[in-house]
């Protein structure tokens, strides 16, 4: 009798161990293939998580990010390349999913704007400095003229 209990307990333990092993495997789906996982992450680095918009797909724990990483993984495993996968994402979620916005007419202001502002600021600064210098010499001259009296 005691022996039967022992066997039963052993079985229960074994099942529990099995389950926990299975759960462990499910949490990290393709940990057996670190090379594939690295490529998934490399592509996910360049994509935006649409739920938590300031995170990349690689960094996010949102459900959608996990699903989209799974899509990348599947597509890589099916032999698609990086450009095809990026196209797949952009076709569904738009340019917004790209963490680096592309250089195209509606993003020209975004890319060029800061440099235009910088050039403008430098131009204003140069003008102000020139004016001050001119005014400065003028002031000195008038001061000199008045000084002798």
């Amino acid at each position, binding site marked *: 009798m005691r022996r039967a209990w022992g066997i039963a307990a052993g079985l229960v333990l074994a099942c529990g161990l099995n389950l926990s092993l299975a759960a462990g495997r499910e949490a990290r789906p393709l940990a057996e293939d670190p090379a594939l996982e690295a490529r998934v992450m490399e592509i996910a680095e360049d994509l935006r998580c*649409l739920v938590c*918009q300031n995170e990349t797909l690689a960094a996010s724990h949102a459900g959608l990010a996990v*699903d*989209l990483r799974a899509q990348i993984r599947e597509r890589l495993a099916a032999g698609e390349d990086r450009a095809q996968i990026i196209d797949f994402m952009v076709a*569904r979620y*738009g340019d917004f999913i790209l963490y680096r916005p592309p250089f195209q007419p509606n993003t020209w202001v975004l890319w060029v704007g800061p440099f235009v502002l910088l050039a403008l600021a430098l131009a204003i600064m140069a003008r102000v400095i020139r004016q001050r210098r001119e005014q400065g010499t003028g002031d000195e001259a008038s001061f000199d003229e008045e000084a002798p009296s």
Partner: protein
Amino acid sequence: MKKQAWLPLLVFLVLVGFLAVGLRLDPRDLPSPLIDRPAPQFALPSVDAMDQVRDSGDLRGQVWLLNVWASWCVACRQEHGALMDFAAQESVPLYGLNYKDRHGDAVRWLRERGDPYVDSFFDGEGRVGIDFGVYGVPETFLIDREGRIRYKHAGPLTPELLRDTILPLIGALGA
């Protein structure tokens, strides 16, 4: 000198203008690249009868609404009344895409709150959702006779949105 005195004020006003526009933009409301494109084709089991696979191609030739919902989605509760009212008006068929839900929970939700849908497609893994570019639930798509997506709304529907935007669009599509 007088001209230059206005410059800081001008810069300030331009800045105010940018910020005022920025305040009105909703960063959650992303433009969908699918507008005016053919809606993704899919075949999924019906929430009402899981052994029956329904094909979205069967809906060709009519204008219809696809509402992405889930029992775990809090904002879906908010829009449910508006959906029930819409269904009661019998303007165009309203279909549901039950997104990443558990089937039992979905059935219970429809039983408890009422079922505004002609039918709901069961997208347990969310794959069809990805094809539609779904990034948050609820989302609603208006699809025309040729099977193209003509309008998309992310977030809960309101009676005002249905009345002022969606119903006129449906009218314009000749349904």
